[in-house]
């Protein structure tokens, strides 16, 4: 295996890289996509999350080889969608963003959740976001934001 080929934000991409490289490093260093962040580096904080075939995945513990043939959406790609616009406004209005470090991961987690469950209960939201740590907001404002996004974006998901 010398190349890894996948769809990145809608564009077919082939990279000649070490397939054991953490996919987060590929995104940030080889592709200069700085939306996914490195928080804990061991899958506990979700700051590095992206969507793979529509599902949230932590890229800090993901071998680049495992995205072969997959559809990868980072926050940069997701930012061009209507769904993003709804989630962004909801986060902005409720105060779901403070320092912003966790925000790309939180938005990816929100999208992954709403993809499967367009009108989640409070419990479902807490589970959907359970792998994402935020050290500023105390979570309540983020949960409010997800609820607001689900309501306002009814029919989008």
């Amino acid at each position, binding site marked *: 295996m010398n190349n890894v080929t996948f769809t990145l934000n809608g564009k077919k991409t082939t990279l000649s890289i070490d397939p054991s490289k953490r996919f987060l490093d590929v995104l940030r260093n080889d592709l200069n996509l700085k939306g996914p962040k490195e928080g804990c580096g061991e899958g506990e904080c*979700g700051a590095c999350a992206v969507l793979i075939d529509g599902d949230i995945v932590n890229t800090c513990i993901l071998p680049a080889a495992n995205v072969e043939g997959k559809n990868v959406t980072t926050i940069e790609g997701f930012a061009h969608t209507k769904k993003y616009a709804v989630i962004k406004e909801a986060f902005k209005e409720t105060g779901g963003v403070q320092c912003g470090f966790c925000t790309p991961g939180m938005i990816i987690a929100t999208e992954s959740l709403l993809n499967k469950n367009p009108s989640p209960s409070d419990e479902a939201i807490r*589970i959907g976001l359970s792998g994402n740590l935020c050290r500023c907001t105390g979570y309540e404002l983020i949960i409010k934001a997800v609820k607001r996004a689900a309501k306002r974006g009814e029919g989008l998901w």
Partner: protein
Amino acid sequence: MVSHRHPNSLEEALETLKNEPCHIVGGGSDLWVKNRSWANTPPAFKKTLLYLAHLESLKGIRKTDDSLIIGAMTPYETILNHPETPALLKACLYELASPAIRHVATLAGNIANASPAADAVLVLIALDATLEIQNHAFKRTVKVKDLIEGPGKTSLESRDLITSIRIPRRTFTHQTYKKVGGRKADAISKVAFAGGAVIKDGTVKHLSLALGAVNATVVRDEGVEKPYINQPLSKLKSEKEAFKKALSSSINPIDDQRSNALYRKKVALNMINRFIESL
């Protein structure tokens, strides 16, 4: 630099394993933490990497008359959302890691890593699950309990691959899964408990209890359970202290960064107590 193998079929994977020792990579979520390197440098692996997460023949869940068979590369989230998954396993997967890990991590990885704190393992042992293991020459079936020998140690040989997990279909009348961790998601257990029972007309028809993170391997003692099977439930209830005492000698937890032995033992015994009281 290590080699990377991305086989197109199970046969090709088994052939690779026959020829060279490999790290078998499913979701990679444990291996990539354990072999972590500095940011922007590949992890420090010393063996060939054999990537298998893409092999469809190792994925999926199917039902037979008496079992549920889960392909080794089926991610947790798929198992969690499957209607036939036993409730006890669902209860565990619901609290295991987080969606972002459950979309890639596998039961086979949890088993092969053989961590004493592996959450799914104790549930599989409580459910009497077995594994189908293949190599280039033959297939064999092994109980999950018999495969794991110690922390990070299994009876798997370097050419072996876990291809599926078989869980006998059984409807418990009573079941409990309880995990004690520092956080609701993404926590490594301080101590974990899985219990299942079938009680019919006041008689214990089936009983299985397993505890994780309290010894080098999961604690389940069928010898302790057996005298209570096909006996009145009142016998188990009245001999609860003796039952706990019999298991107590196997509950030998350690002090580490997550918890301490005294706490773990106390909680483990409380969990057994509560389970028996709930029957």
